[in-house]
Protein backbone atom coordinates (compact mmCIF):
# COMPACT_ATOMS: atom_id res chain seq x y z
CA UNK A 1 0.00 0.00 0.00
CA UNK A 2 2.93 2.31 0.61
CA UNK A 3 3.67 1.84 -3.06
CA UNK A 4 0.16 2.92 -3.94
CA UNK A 5 0.35 5.99 -1.76
CA UNK A 6 3.59 7.05 -3.34
CA UNK A 7 1.89 6.51 -6.64
CA UNK A 8 -0.95 8.82 -5.71
CA UNK A 9 1.50 11.54 -4.76
CA UNK A 10 3.48 11.03 -7.94
CA UNK A 11 0.32 11.22 -9.97
CA UNK A 12 -0.87 14.34 -8.23
CA UNK A 13 2.45 16.00 -8.86
CA UNK A 14 2.44 15.01 -12.51
CA UNK A 15 -1.07 16.37 -12.85
CA UNK A 16 -0.03 19.66 -11.33
CA UNK A 17 1.92 20.65 -14.43
CA UNK A 18 -0.89 20.57 -17.00
CA UNK A 19 -3.29 21.82 -14.37
CA UNK A 20 -1.26 24.96 -13.80
CA UNK A 21 -3.46 26.59 -16.39
CA UNK A 22 -6.47 25.71 -14.29
CA UNK A 23 -4.85 26.83 -11.03
CA UNK A 24 -6.83 30.00 -11.22
CA UNK A 25 -10.12 28.17 -10.75
CA UNK A 26 -8.56 26.04 -8.06
CA UNK A 27 -7.46 29.06 -6.13
CA UNK A 28 -10.97 30.43 -6.51
CA UNK A 29 -12.33 27.24 -5.09
CA UNK A 30 -9.91 27.21 -2.19
CA UNK A 31 -10.88 30.80 -1.46
CA UNK A 32 -14.51 29.73 -1.48
CA UNK A 33 -13.80 27.16 1.17
CA UNK A 34 -12.21 29.61 3.52
CA UNK A 35 -14.00 32.84 2.84
CA UNK A 36 -17.65 33.70 3.01
CA UNK A 37 -19.04 35.85 0.24
CA UNK A 38 -22.29 37.08 -1.19
CA UNK A 39 -24.08 34.58 -3.39
CA UNK A 40 -23.15 35.22 -6.97
CA UNK A 41 -26.17 36.01 -9.12
CA UNK A 42 -26.36 37.82 -12.41
CA UNK A 43 -27.33 40.90 -10.48
CA UNK A 44 -26.90 41.70 -6.85
CA UNK A 45 -30.37 41.21 -5.51
CA UNK A 46 -29.66 37.72 -4.21
CA UNK A 47 -29.39 37.56 -0.49
CA UNK A 48 -27.46 34.69 0.97
CA UNK A 49 -23.97 34.30 2.24
CA UNK A 50 -22.21 31.31 0.79
CA UNK A 51 -18.84 29.72 1.30
CA UNK A 52 -16.58 30.07 4.27
CA UNK A 53 -15.36 27.49 6.75
CA UNK A 54 -18.54 27.42 8.79
CA UNK A 55 -20.73 26.42 5.91
CA UNK A 56 -18.15 24.04 4.50
CA UNK A 57 -17.74 22.31 7.82
CA UNK A 58 -21.50 22.20 8.37
CA UNK A 59 -22.08 20.40 5.10
CA UNK A 60 -19.04 18.18 5.50
CA UNK A 61 -20.17 17.16 8.96
CA UNK A 62 -23.62 16.25 7.62
CA UNK A 63 -21.99 14.30 4.83
CA UNK A 64 -19.81 12.38 7.26
CA UNK A 65 -22.74 11.85 9.60
CA UNK A 66 -24.98 10.19 7.07
CA UNK A 67 -22.08 8.20 5.61
CA UNK A 68 -20.97 6.87 8.98
CA UNK A 69 -24.52 5.98 9.89
CA UNK A 70 -25.05 4.08 6.65
CA UNK A 71 -21.68 2.34 6.89
CA UNK A 72 -22.25 1.33 10.49
CA UNK A 73 -25.63 -0.20 9.79
CA UNK A 74 -24.30 -1.92 6.68
CA UNK A 75 -21.49 -3.43 8.73
CA UNK A 76 -23.81 -4.62 11.45
CA UNK A 77 -26.07 -6.27 8.91
CA UNK A 78 -23.68 -7.58 6.29
CA UNK A 79 -20.56 -8.60 8.17
CA UNK A 80 -22.06 -11.26 10.43
CA UNK A 81 -24.08 -12.76 7.61
CA UNK A 82 -21.14 -12.87 5.24
CA UNK A 83 -18.83 -14.34 7.85
CA UNK A 84 -21.27 -17.00 8.98
CA UNK A 85 -22.14 -18.03 5.45
CA UNK A 86 -18.48 -18.22 4.56
CA UNK A 87 -17.69 -20.22 7.65
CA UNK A 88 -20.43 -22.72 6.86
CA UNK A 89 -19.61 -22.74 3.21
CA UNK A 90 -23.22 -22.12 2.22
CA UNK A 91 -24.86 -19.65 -0.10
CA UNK A 92 -21.89 -19.01 -2.35
CA UNK A 93 -23.97 -18.17 -5.35
CA UNK A 94 -26.09 -15.73 -3.40
CA UNK A 95 -23.13 -13.99 -1.81
CA UNK A 96 -21.36 -13.49 -5.12
CA UNK A 97 -24.56 -12.50 -6.89
CA UNK A 98 -25.36 -9.84 -4.30
CA UNK A 99 -21.91 -8.43 -4.78
CA UNK A 100 -22.38 -8.18 -8.52
CA UNK A 101 -25.89 -6.83 -8.18
CA UNK A 102 -24.72 -4.13 -5.83
CA UNK A 103 -22.39 -2.78 -8.46
CA UNK A 104 -25.20 -2.62 -10.97
CA UNK A 105 -27.55 -0.49 -8.88
CA UNK A 106 -27.85 2.98 -10.37
CA UNK A 107 -27.53 5.48 -7.52
CA UNK A 108 -29.88 8.10 -8.92
CA UNK A 109 -32.65 5.57 -9.48
CA UNK A 110 -32.16 4.22 -5.98
CA UNK A 111 -32.45 7.59 -4.30
CA UNK A 112 -35.33 8.65 -6.52
CA UNK A 113 -37.05 5.38 -5.64
CA UNK A 114 -36.71 6.03 -1.91
CA UNK A 115 -37.89 9.61 -2.30
CA UNK A 116 -40.88 8.69 -4.42
CA UNK A 117 -42.02 5.76 -2.33
CA UNK A 118 -41.10 6.85 1.16
CA UNK A 119 -40.21 10.53 1.03
CA UNK A 120 -37.31 12.82 1.77
CA UNK A 121 -35.34 12.58 4.95
CA UNK A 122 -32.31 11.23 6.74
CA UNK A 123 -33.65 7.72 7.30
CA UNK A 124 -34.61 7.28 3.68
CA UNK A 125 -31.26 8.48 2.45
CA UNK A 126 -29.49 6.16 4.89
CA UNK A 127 -31.47 3.17 3.68
CA UNK A 128 -30.58 4.00 0.08
CA UNK A 129 -26.91 4.26 1.01
CA UNK A 130 -27.09 0.95 2.84
CA UNK A 131 -28.21 -0.74 -0.34
CA UNK A 132 -24.91 0.35 -1.82
CA UNK A 133 -22.84 -0.46 1.24
CA UNK A 134 -24.06 -3.95 2.06
CA UNK A 135 -23.05 -5.87 -1.11
CA UNK A 136 -19.27 -5.28 -1.01
CA UNK A 137 -19.12 -6.05 2.71
CA UNK A 138 -21.23 -9.18 2.40
CA UNK A 139 -19.41 -10.57 -0.61
CA UNK A 140 -15.94 -9.83 0.64
CA UNK A 141 -16.69 -11.22 4.08
CA UNK A 142 -17.90 -14.43 2.46
CA UNK A 143 -15.04 -14.72 0.01
CA UNK A 144 -12.49 -13.75 2.63
CA UNK A 145 -13.52 -16.45 5.03
CA UNK A 146 -13.88 -19.05 2.27
CA UNK A 147 -10.42 -18.37 0.97
CA UNK A 148 -8.73 -18.95 4.30
CA UNK A 149 -6.22 -21.75 3.92
CA UNK A 150 -7.98 -24.97 4.81
CA UNK A 151 -4.80 -26.30 6.27
CA UNK A 152 -4.73 -23.60 8.89
CA UNK A 153 -8.33 -24.34 9.84
CA UNK A 154 -7.63 -28.07 10.07
CA UNK A 155 -4.59 -27.45 12.19
CA UNK A 156 -6.60 -25.27 14.55
CA UNK A 157 -9.33 -27.88 14.91
CA UNK A 158 -6.68 -30.46 15.43
CA UNK A 159 -5.36 -28.36 18.29
CA UNK A 160 -8.76 -28.67 19.93
CA UNK A 161 -10.26 -25.28 19.20
CA UNK A 162 -14.04 -25.13 19.04
CA UNK A 163 -15.79 -23.95 15.88
CA UNK A 164 -16.35 -20.45 17.15
CA UNK A 165 -12.79 -20.22 18.40
CA UNK A 166 -11.56 -21.27 14.99
CA UNK A 167 -13.66 -18.54 13.53
CA UNK A 168 -12.45 -15.86 15.87
CA UNK A 169 -8.82 -16.79 16.16
CA UNK A 170 -7.99 -18.21 12.78
CA UNK A 171 -10.50 -17.47 10.04
CA UNK A 172 -11.35 -13.85 10.82
CA UNK A 173 -7.80 -12.59 11.21
CA UNK A 174 -6.72 -14.38 8.05
CA UNK A 175 -9.72 -13.05 6.14
CA UNK A 176 -9.20 -9.54 7.42
CA UNK A 177 -7.46 -8.08 4.36
CA UNK A 178 -10.28 -9.15 2.06
CA UNK A 179 -12.94 -8.06 4.51
CA UNK A 180 -11.34 -4.67 4.94
CA UNK A 181 -11.14 -4.23 1.19
CA UNK A 182 -14.89 -4.76 1.12
CA UNK A 183 -15.37 -2.23 3.89
CA UNK A 184 -13.27 0.30 2.04
CA UNK A 185 -15.23 -0.20 -1.16
CA UNK A 186 -18.46 0.19 0.75
CA UNK A 187 -17.22 3.35 2.42
CA UNK A 188 -16.26 4.92 -0.89
CA UNK A 189 -19.56 3.95 -2.50
CA UNK A 190 -21.46 5.46 0.37
CA UNK A 191 -19.50 8.69 0.53
CA UNK A 192 -19.70 9.18 -3.22
CA UNK A 193 -23.45 8.54 -3.30
CA UNK A 194 -24.09 10.75 -0.29
CA UNK A 195 -23.22 13.53 -2.72
CA UNK A 196 -26.72 13.02 -4.12
CA UNK A 197 -28.16 13.68 -0.67
CA UNK A 198 -29.77 17.03 -1.60
CA UNK A 199 -32.15 15.19 -3.89
CA UNK A 200 -33.45 13.45 -0.78
CA UNK A 201 -33.63 16.71 1.11
CA UNK A 202 -30.48 16.04 3.11
CA UNK A 203 -27.85 18.69 2.73
CA UNK A 204 -24.42 17.20 2.20
CA UNK A 205 -21.33 18.36 0.33
CA UNK A 206 -23.28 17.51 -2.79
CA UNK A 207 -25.31 20.67 -2.35
CA UNK A 208 -22.34 22.71 -3.57
CA UNK A 209 -22.51 20.76 -6.79
CA UNK A 210 -26.22 20.26 -7.30
CA UNK A 211 -27.37 23.73 -6.37
CA UNK A 212 -24.67 25.23 -8.50
CA UNK A 213 -26.39 28.55 -9.04
CA UNK A 214 -26.53 29.28 -5.33
CA UNK A 215 -22.85 28.65 -4.77
CA UNK A 216 -21.39 29.66 -8.11
CA UNK A 217 -18.84 27.83 -10.22
CA UNK A 218 -16.20 28.20 -7.52
CA UNK A 219 -18.57 26.51 -5.15
CA UNK A 220 -19.01 23.58 -7.51
CA UNK A 221 -15.28 23.10 -7.82
CA UNK A 222 -14.90 23.46 -4.07
CA UNK A 223 -17.56 20.82 -3.54
CA UNK A 224 -15.81 18.42 -5.88
CA UNK A 225 -12.49 18.99 -4.18
CA UNK A 226 -13.98 18.54 -0.74
CA UNK A 227 -15.64 15.23 -1.55
CA UNK A 228 -12.48 13.96 -3.21
CA UNK A 229 -10.43 14.99 -0.17
CA UNK A 230 -12.92 13.27 2.11
CA UNK A 231 -12.73 10.06 0.10
CA UNK A 232 -8.92 10.06 0.11
CA UNK A 233 -8.84 10.75 3.83
CA UNK A 234 -11.22 7.92 4.56
CA UNK A 235 -9.25 5.60 2.27
CA UNK A 236 -6.03 6.38 4.15
CA UNK A 237 -7.68 5.92 7.54
CA UNK A 238 -9.21 2.59 6.56
CA UNK A 239 -5.95 1.47 5.00
CA UNK A 240 -4.27 2.16 8.33
CA UNK A 241 -7.01 0.25 10.14
CA UNK A 242 -6.50 -2.63 7.75
CA UNK A 243 -2.79 -2.67 8.51
CA UNK A 244 -3.56 -2.72 12.21
CA UNK A 245 -5.99 -5.59 11.94
CA UNK A 246 -3.93 -7.78 9.63
CA UNK A 247 -1.97 -10.33 11.63
CA UNK A 248 1.73 -9.63 11.41
CA UNK A 249 2.55 -13.05 10.11
CA UNK A 250 0.22 -12.64 7.24
CA UNK A 251 1.49 -9.19 6.45
CA UNK A 252 5.06 -10.42 6.38
CA UNK A 253 4.05 -13.33 4.22
CA UNK A 254 2.36 -11.09 1.73
CA UNK A 255 5.18 -8.59 1.68
CA UNK A 256 7.55 -11.44 0.94
CA UNK A 257 5.38 -12.85 -1.84
CA UNK A 258 4.68 -9.51 -3.44
CA UNK A 259 8.25 -8.27 -3.70
Amino acid at each position, binding site marked *: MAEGEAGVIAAALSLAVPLSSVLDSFSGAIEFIFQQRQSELESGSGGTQVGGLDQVWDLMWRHIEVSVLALAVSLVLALPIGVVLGHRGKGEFLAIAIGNAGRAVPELALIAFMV*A*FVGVGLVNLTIALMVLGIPPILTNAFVGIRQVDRGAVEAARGMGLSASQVLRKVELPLAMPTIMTGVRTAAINIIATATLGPIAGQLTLGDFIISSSVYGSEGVLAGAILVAVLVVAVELVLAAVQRLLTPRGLALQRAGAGA
Partner: protein
Amino acid sequence: MISYLAVELGGALTLAQSELGEDFFRDRSNPDCVQRNGAFCFEWAADNLVDRYLTPTLQHLVLVSVSVALGFVIALGLALVSHRRRWLTPAITGLTGVLYTVPSIAFFVLLLPVTGRGTDTAIIALTAYTLQIIYRNAVAGLANVPAEARDSGRGMGMTPRQLLWGVELPLALPEIIAGLRIATVSTVAIATLAVFAGAGGLGAEIFANLTFKTGIIICGGIAIGMAIGFDALLVGVQRLISPWRRVRPV
Protein backbone atom coordinates in the same frame (compact mmCIF):
# COMPACT_ATOMS: atom_id res chain seq x y z
CA MET B 1 -52.18 43.40 -2.13
CA ILE B 2 -52.07 44.57 -5.71
CA SER B 3 -50.32 41.45 -6.92
CA TYR B 4 -52.88 39.30 -5.18
CA LEU B 5 -55.63 41.14 -7.00
CA ALA B 6 -53.80 40.56 -10.24
CA VAL B 7 -53.66 36.84 -9.58
CA GLU B 8 -57.35 36.73 -8.77
CA LEU B 9 -58.19 38.67 -11.90
CA GLY B 10 -55.95 36.51 -13.97
CA GLY B 11 -58.05 33.57 -12.92
CA ALA B 12 -61.40 35.29 -13.33
CA LEU B 13 -60.91 36.41 -16.89
CA THR B 14 -59.73 33.14 -18.35
CA LEU B 15 -62.74 31.61 -20.04
CA ALA B 16 -63.54 34.87 -21.76
CA GLN B 17 -60.26 34.84 -23.71
CA SER B 18 -59.38 31.22 -24.35
CA GLU B 19 -60.57 29.74 -27.60
CA LEU B 20 -60.39 26.21 -26.26
CA GLY B 21 -63.71 24.59 -25.59
CA GLU B 22 -64.94 22.85 -22.46
CA ASP B 23 -63.94 19.45 -23.78
CA PHE B 24 -60.28 20.44 -23.72
CA PHE B 25 -60.39 20.12 -19.96
CA ARG B 26 -60.33 16.60 -18.61
CA ASP B 27 -62.31 15.11 -15.81
CA ARG B 28 -59.98 13.88 -13.12
CA SER B 29 -62.51 12.97 -10.49
CA ASN B 30 -61.76 9.26 -10.92
CA PRO B 31 -58.00 9.06 -11.00
CA ASP B 32 -56.53 5.99 -12.68
CA CYS B 33 -53.34 4.21 -11.62
CA VAL B 34 -50.99 6.76 -13.13
CA GLN B 35 -52.93 9.74 -11.86
CA ARG B 36 -52.86 8.31 -8.35
CA ASN B 37 -49.14 7.63 -8.78
CA GLY B 38 -49.62 4.01 -7.84
CA ALA B 39 -46.70 1.76 -7.05
CA PHE B 40 -46.49 0.24 -10.50
CA CYS B 41 -48.92 0.74 -13.33
CA PHE B 42 -48.60 -2.28 -15.58
CA GLU B 43 -50.96 -1.15 -18.27
CA TRP B 44 -49.33 2.21 -18.63
CA ALA B 45 -45.91 0.59 -18.61
CA ALA B 46 -46.86 -1.78 -21.40
CA ASP B 47 -48.38 0.97 -23.51
CA ASN B 48 -45.61 3.48 -23.06
CA LEU B 49 -42.49 1.39 -22.69
CA VAL B 50 -41.21 1.85 -26.20
CA ASP B 51 -42.61 5.31 -26.73
CA ARG B 52 -41.11 6.89 -23.64
CA TYR B 53 -38.12 4.78 -22.80
CA LEU B 54 -36.60 3.62 -26.06
CA THR B 55 -34.72 6.82 -26.79
CA PRO B 56 -33.26 7.24 -23.31
CA THR B 57 -32.30 3.56 -23.31
CA LEU B 58 -30.50 3.91 -26.61
CA GLN B 59 -28.76 7.04 -25.42
CA HIS B 60 -27.70 5.15 -22.33
CA LEU B 61 -26.42 2.24 -24.41
CA VAL B 62 -24.33 4.56 -26.52
CA LEU B 63 -22.87 6.27 -23.49
CA VAL B 64 -21.86 2.96 -21.92
CA SER B 65 -20.56 1.28 -25.05
CA VAL B 66 -18.44 4.16 -26.24
CA SER B 67 -17.02 4.89 -22.79
CA VAL B 68 -16.10 1.30 -22.03
CA ALA B 69 -14.61 0.77 -25.47
CA LEU B 70 -12.51 3.91 -25.18
CA GLY B 71 -11.55 3.08 -21.63
CA PHE B 72 -10.55 -0.41 -22.65
CA VAL B 73 -8.31 0.81 -25.45
CA ILE B 74 -6.65 3.46 -23.31
CA ALA B 75 -6.25 1.31 -20.20
CA LEU B 76 -4.95 -1.68 -22.14
CA GLY B 77 -2.50 0.59 -23.91
CA LEU B 78 -1.32 1.96 -20.61
CA ALA B 79 -0.98 -1.56 -19.22
CA LEU B 80 1.14 -2.62 -22.17
CA VAL B 81 3.35 0.40 -21.75
CA SER B 82 3.88 -0.17 -18.05
CA HIS B 83 4.37 -3.90 -18.64
CA ARG B 84 7.76 -3.10 -20.13
CA ARG B 85 8.49 -0.15 -17.92
CA ARG B 86 7.46 -1.35 -14.49
CA TRP B 87 8.41 1.90 -12.80
CA LEU B 88 5.46 3.57 -14.48
CA THR B 89 2.92 1.34 -12.74
CA PRO B 90 2.53 3.22 -9.45
CA ALA B 91 2.22 6.55 -11.22
CA ILE B 92 -0.43 5.34 -13.65
CA THR B 93 -2.26 3.48 -10.90
CA GLY B 94 -2.25 6.64 -8.86
CA LEU B 95 -3.46 8.76 -11.76
CA THR B 96 -6.34 6.48 -12.69
CA GLY B 97 -7.15 6.17 -9.02
CA VAL B 98 -7.35 9.93 -8.62
CA LEU B 99 -9.74 10.12 -11.56
CA TYR B 100 -11.88 7.43 -9.97
CA THR B 101 -12.00 9.28 -6.67
CA VAL B 102 -13.64 12.39 -8.02
CA PRO B 103 -17.35 11.87 -7.41
CA SER B 104 -19.21 11.35 -10.66
CA ILE B 105 -21.58 14.30 -10.51
CA ALA B 106 -18.70 16.57 -9.70
CA PHE B 107 -16.76 15.29 -12.68
CA PHE B 108 -19.67 15.91 -15.03
CA VAL B 109 -20.35 19.36 -13.70
CA LEU B 110 -16.68 20.31 -13.72
CA LEU B 111 -16.28 19.38 -17.36
CA LEU B 112 -19.23 21.55 -18.38
CA PRO B 113 -17.35 24.81 -18.79
CA VAL B 114 -14.54 22.98 -20.55
CA THR B 115 -16.36 20.78 -23.02
CA GLY B 116 -19.92 22.07 -22.93
CA ARG B 117 -23.19 20.26 -22.35
CA GLY B 118 -23.81 16.99 -24.07
CA THR B 119 -22.83 13.43 -24.74
CA ASP B 120 -19.12 14.13 -25.32
CA THR B 121 -18.65 15.54 -21.86
CA ALA B 122 -20.37 12.56 -20.31
CA ILE B 123 -18.28 10.13 -22.32
CA ILE B 124 -15.03 11.76 -21.20
CA ALA B 125 -15.98 11.42 -17.56
CA LEU B 126 -17.33 7.89 -17.91
CA THR B 127 -14.20 6.77 -19.75
CA ALA B 128 -12.04 8.20 -16.99
CA TYR B 129 -13.91 6.09 -14.43
CA THR B 130 -13.28 2.85 -16.28
CA LEU B 131 -9.54 3.37 -16.48
CA GLN B 132 -8.56 2.36 -12.99
CA ILE B 133 -10.23 -1.02 -12.84
CA ILE B 134 -9.34 -2.10 -16.37
CA TYR B 135 -5.76 -0.94 -15.98
CA ARG B 136 -5.33 -2.63 -12.63
CA ASN B 137 -6.72 -5.91 -13.89
CA ALA B 138 -4.73 -5.79 -17.12
CA VAL B 139 -1.50 -5.21 -15.24
CA ALA B 140 -2.30 -7.97 -12.78
CA GLY B 141 -3.27 -10.30 -15.59
CA LEU B 142 -0.05 -9.71 -17.46
CA ALA B 143 1.99 -10.02 -14.30
CA ASN B 144 0.36 -13.34 -13.46
CA VAL B 145 1.35 -15.01 -16.69
CA PRO B 146 3.29 -18.08 -15.56
CA ALA B 147 7.01 -17.82 -16.12
CA GLU B 148 7.05 -21.24 -17.75
CA ALA B 149 4.70 -20.07 -20.46
CA ARG B 150 6.97 -17.15 -21.24
CA ASP B 151 10.01 -19.34 -21.23
CA SER B 152 8.41 -21.83 -23.60
CA GLY B 153 7.46 -19.03 -25.90
CA ARG B 154 10.95 -17.64 -25.94
CA GLY B 155 12.27 -21.11 -26.35
CA MET B 156 10.17 -21.49 -29.47
CA GLY B 157 11.84 -18.43 -30.86
CA MET B 158 9.07 -15.90 -30.44
CA THR B 159 9.90 -12.23 -30.66
CA PRO B 160 8.76 -10.06 -27.76
CA ARG B 161 5.84 -8.87 -29.82
CA GLN B 162 4.80 -12.39 -30.77
CA LEU B 163 5.19 -13.36 -27.16
CA LEU B 164 2.91 -10.57 -26.10
CA TRP B 165 0.13 -11.24 -28.56
CA GLY B 166 0.50 -15.00 -28.73
CA VAL B 167 1.15 -15.93 -25.13
CA GLU B 168 0.89 -13.18 -22.57
CA LEU B 169 -2.32 -11.46 -23.62
CA PRO B 170 -4.33 -14.63 -24.14
CA LEU B 171 -3.27 -15.89 -20.72
CA ALA B 172 -4.05 -12.55 -19.16
CA LEU B 173 -7.44 -12.49 -20.84
CA PRO B 174 -9.61 -13.78 -17.97
CA GLU B 175 -8.27 -11.13 -15.64
CA ILE B 176 -8.69 -8.41 -18.26
CA ILE B 177 -12.24 -9.43 -18.99
CA ALA B 178 -13.00 -9.59 -15.28
CA GLY B 179 -11.93 -5.96 -15.09
CA LEU B 180 -13.94 -5.15 -18.17
CA ARG B 181 -17.04 -6.70 -16.63
CA ILE B 182 -16.69 -4.68 -13.46
CA ALA B 183 -16.06 -1.51 -15.43
CA THR B 184 -19.07 -2.06 -17.67
CA VAL B 185 -21.48 -2.79 -14.87
CA SER B 186 -20.27 0.25 -12.94
CA THR B 187 -20.51 2.44 -16.01
CA VAL B 188 -24.14 1.50 -16.60
CA ALA B 189 -24.91 2.65 -13.08
CA ILE B 190 -22.84 5.84 -13.21
CA ALA B 191 -24.21 6.81 -16.61
CA THR B 192 -27.55 7.54 -14.96
CA LEU B 193 -25.86 10.64 -13.60
CA ALA B 194 -24.95 11.79 -17.10
CA VAL B 195 -28.06 13.95 -16.96
CA PHE B 196 -25.93 16.44 -15.02
CA ALA B 197 -23.76 16.81 -18.10
CA GLY B 198 -26.78 17.35 -20.31
CA ALA B 199 -26.34 13.96 -21.95
CA GLY B 200 -29.76 12.42 -21.55
CA GLY B 201 -29.91 8.72 -20.86
CA LEU B 202 -32.08 6.95 -18.31
CA GLY B 203 -31.08 9.42 -15.62
CA ALA B 204 -32.61 12.28 -17.54
CA GLU B 205 -35.90 10.40 -17.69
CA ILE B 206 -35.79 9.83 -13.93
CA PHE B 207 -34.95 13.44 -13.21
CA ALA B 208 -37.69 14.77 -15.45
CA ASN B 209 -40.26 12.73 -13.52
CA LEU B 210 -38.77 12.56 -10.08
CA THR B 211 -41.95 11.54 -8.29
CA PHE B 212 -43.33 9.10 -10.84
CA LYS B 213 -43.11 5.72 -9.18
CA THR B 214 -43.74 3.59 -12.23
CA GLY B 215 -41.21 5.55 -14.26
CA ILE B 216 -38.47 5.17 -11.67
CA ILE B 217 -39.00 1.44 -11.48
CA ILE B 218 -38.89 1.12 -15.24
CA CYS B 219 -35.70 3.18 -15.58
CA GLY B 220 -34.01 1.40 -12.71
CA GLY B 221 -35.11 -1.94 -14.10
CA ILE B 222 -33.77 -1.16 -17.57
CA ALA B 223 -30.46 -0.01 -16.12
CA ILE B 224 -30.03 -3.14 -14.03
CA GLY B 225 -31.11 -5.30 -16.94
CA MET B 226 -28.59 -3.57 -19.17
CA ALA B 227 -25.84 -4.22 -16.65
CA ILE B 228 -26.73 -7.88 -16.42
CA GLY B 229 -26.93 -8.10 -20.18
CA PHE B 230 -23.51 -6.58 -20.72
CA ASP B 231 -22.05 -8.82 -18.06
CA ALA B 232 -23.46 -11.92 -19.71
CA LEU B 233 -22.28 -10.69 -23.09
CA LEU B 234 -18.72 -10.29 -21.85
CA VAL B 235 -18.76 -13.72 -20.25
CA GLY B 236 -19.86 -15.07 -23.60
CA VAL B 237 -17.07 -13.20 -25.36
CA GLN B 238 -14.52 -14.67 -23.01
CA ARG B 239 -15.82 -18.19 -23.53
CA LEU B 240 -15.59 -17.60 -27.25
CA ILE B 241 -12.06 -16.34 -27.20
CA SER B 242 -10.58 -18.73 -24.68
CA PRO B 243 -12.84 -21.74 -24.32
CA TRP B 244 -10.22 -23.67 -22.49
CA ARG B 245 -10.35 -21.38 -19.51
CA ARG B 246 -13.10 -21.50 -16.93
CA VAL B 247 -14.83 -18.20 -16.43
CA ARG B 248 -13.65 -16.68 -13.20
CA PRO B 249 -16.31 -15.61 -10.74
CA VAL B 250 -15.84 -11.91 -10.34
